[in-house]
């Protein structure tokens, strides 16, 4: 499976101060930033945004994009929230009912039918997109 790693950029708000123990490692094909200590100096809790993503060849970007839209809608996330293909539904605030409702939303959007034991197994955006494409191709192939 081919993967492309885009450069990860992490932007911090001005009130975030990184301690000297932060390390930036660049090795081979990937660059990672390991934050070992971070402190918030202000009363409000600033958001950290990571714009890095990995693209795998398993599902079309449009499919991934549509999945993200449906997930955001179900979980009432702001439209400009940045989700990544490996975003976990649970980490985005989905409880178990949300997960099945996301899957039902995807079924409606893509006109597919997800088997029951798969509905609760889908835990990330990528997994959902991959399953959708698999079911679509099975449908057209049948």
């Amino acid at each position, binding site marked *: 499976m081919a993967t492309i790693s885009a450069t990860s950029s992490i932007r911090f708000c001005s009130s975030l101060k990184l301690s000297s123990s932060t390390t930036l490692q660049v090795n081979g094909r990937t660059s990672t930033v*390991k934050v070992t200590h971070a402190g918030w100096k202000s009363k409000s809790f600033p958001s950290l945004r990571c714009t890095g993503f990995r693209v795998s060849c398993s599902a079309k970007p449009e499919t991934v994009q549509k999945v993200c839209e449906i997930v955001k809608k179900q979980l009432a996330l*702001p439209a400009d929230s940045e989700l990544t293909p490996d975003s976990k539904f649970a980490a985005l605030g989905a409880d*178990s009912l949300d997960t099945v409702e996301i899957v039902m939303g995807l079924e409606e959007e893509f006109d597919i039918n997800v088997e029951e034991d798969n509905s609760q197994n889908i835990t990330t955006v990528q997994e959902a997109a991959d399953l959708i494409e698999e079911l679509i191709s099975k449908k057209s192939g049948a």
Partner: protein
Amino acid sequence: MFCKRGFSMHTTVKSFCSSSYLTTIPLPSKRETHMWYITPDELKDASLIDQYLNVLSPSEKENVIRLPGDKLQRSAILARTLVRTTLARYTNSVVSPSLFKFRKNNFGKPEVDWQCDKNWKPPPLHFNLSHTSSLIACGVTVDMPIGIDVEEKQRKTRNNLSSLARRFFTLDEVDYLNTISNPEIQRQEFIKLWTLKEAYVKALGKGFSAAPFNTFTIRFRGTSRLSLQKCGHSNSEESEIIVETLAEPKNVTTNWRFALLELASSHYVAICVENKRIKGVENDPPLLKVWKTVPFIKDELLSETDSVRTISSFV
């Protein structure tokens, strides 16, 4: 009845937060189940969240940073902090929260990956985590697989209940829901059934493929059915929650015990533990203890208070 175990103190264990204070708790005896919970909306202090962030592992921190928005990041930090601090309490100060490592079993269920040497035998702790945006809970036992699930009582679903029930529940469960005429009570019973089924699958620890929701029925045994319709909630002294697999309906499995609680009048919590029969020991139902915690700051034992209403206790 406590099962006291002695642990040799591991003198070279590093303490991460020098200012941390975490009450140590004796291990749950084999006849107890413990639950610790956090309410994220009450924990917004940035310096406290900062302290919690430093309890997390580097990869957990990385995962937090990638989440969109303050609320989700805070929730993720609190969830990891809850698991780490809760487990640390039961190691008699031997393992500090930041030192825990985790792994997943073959089916993806998280478990502790004890880093220990010959001098210290780690306690056989089982744990399970559940979160909603407004409550995060961690259940702990010794030697009993556990699953817990939390849902907001007022939770609304995008799809209507009967289509969800028809799709995911068994015929018996759908029939049961259909006997309830009051739509609000029907919705509550749907949520209760959902959390119980979820807790069961999580306790089994084999993933949802091993026990799809429509392959087992959860029912309330006893006179609770009638009392449910009359007064809107089951009588805890009379009802017992049981699970039947469709494959063997007559063979009601007593390998699993359930408890259902209403927490702070706002959430339903379902807990499922394995019923391990120990030779020569009375097979009493586990005693449930519930704490509300602000890690390092405050713990409140709430099990015997109004905050924790037992809808159905372990039997």
